[in-house]
């Protein structure tokens, strides 16, 4: 199993550009998550999905969009990149609910720089 894979590993965007961060998991997990990690700020949840076709907002959804058409894929879309979106983005997946002690498996991250 590859686990959770993310592409690209690193990207530089100009202000106002758009891009999609890709995330794929091969563990047949129902739950998928997108986090951003800023220095000294921990992990902030952007969006999550409880299954194909179902998504919901996390703590910091503004400026992002997601879709979940398959169990495996959970892309994150930035429509109009802003410098405040410079961060490291992590995708994660879990078999079940966080509240029933299901481990979240993280991808290696995408480092995004918006200039």
């Amino acid at each position: 199993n590859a686990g959770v894979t993310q592409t690209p590993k690193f990207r530089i965007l100009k202000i106002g550009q758009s891009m999609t961060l890709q995330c794929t998991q091969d563990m047949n997990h129902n739950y998928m998550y997108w986090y951003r990690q800023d220095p000294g700020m921990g992990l902030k949840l952007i969006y999550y999905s409880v299954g194909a076709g179902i998504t919901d907002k996390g703590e910091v959804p503004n400026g992002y969009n997601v879709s979940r058409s398959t169990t495996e894929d959970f892309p994150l879309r930035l429509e109009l990149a802003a410098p405040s979106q410079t961060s490291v983005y992590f995708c994660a997946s879990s078999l079940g609910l966080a509240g029933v002690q299901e481990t979240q498996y993280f991808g290696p991250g995408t480092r995004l720089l918006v200039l």
Partner: protein
Amino acid sequence: QQQVKQSPQSLIVQKGGIPIINCAYENTAFDYFPWYQQFPGKGPALLIAIRPDVSEKKEGRFTISFNKSAKQFSLHIMDSQPGDSATYFCAASSMGAQKLVFGQGTRLTINP
């Protein structure tokens, strides 16, 4: 009330020392407390987790201590090694919750 407060933000310890990272929470509905370990350039990975029906859990050199009345829990690393240098996140969730709430992270450096 959904926050988990983690301290210190950074910690430097000599090899063989016992670093201690602390977390505090307000939401009494939290009943699952995992710790995640993140090496530079990698995603976080589950290290150890505890439920509030026990006060301590050990896995190898890693121990979680839990104080339900104080709403605090901590991670201790015995006989710390340079290879333990990483960022550590505490987290919490409650029964039925769909999300984990993460602390701010602690950057731990173990000097040789």
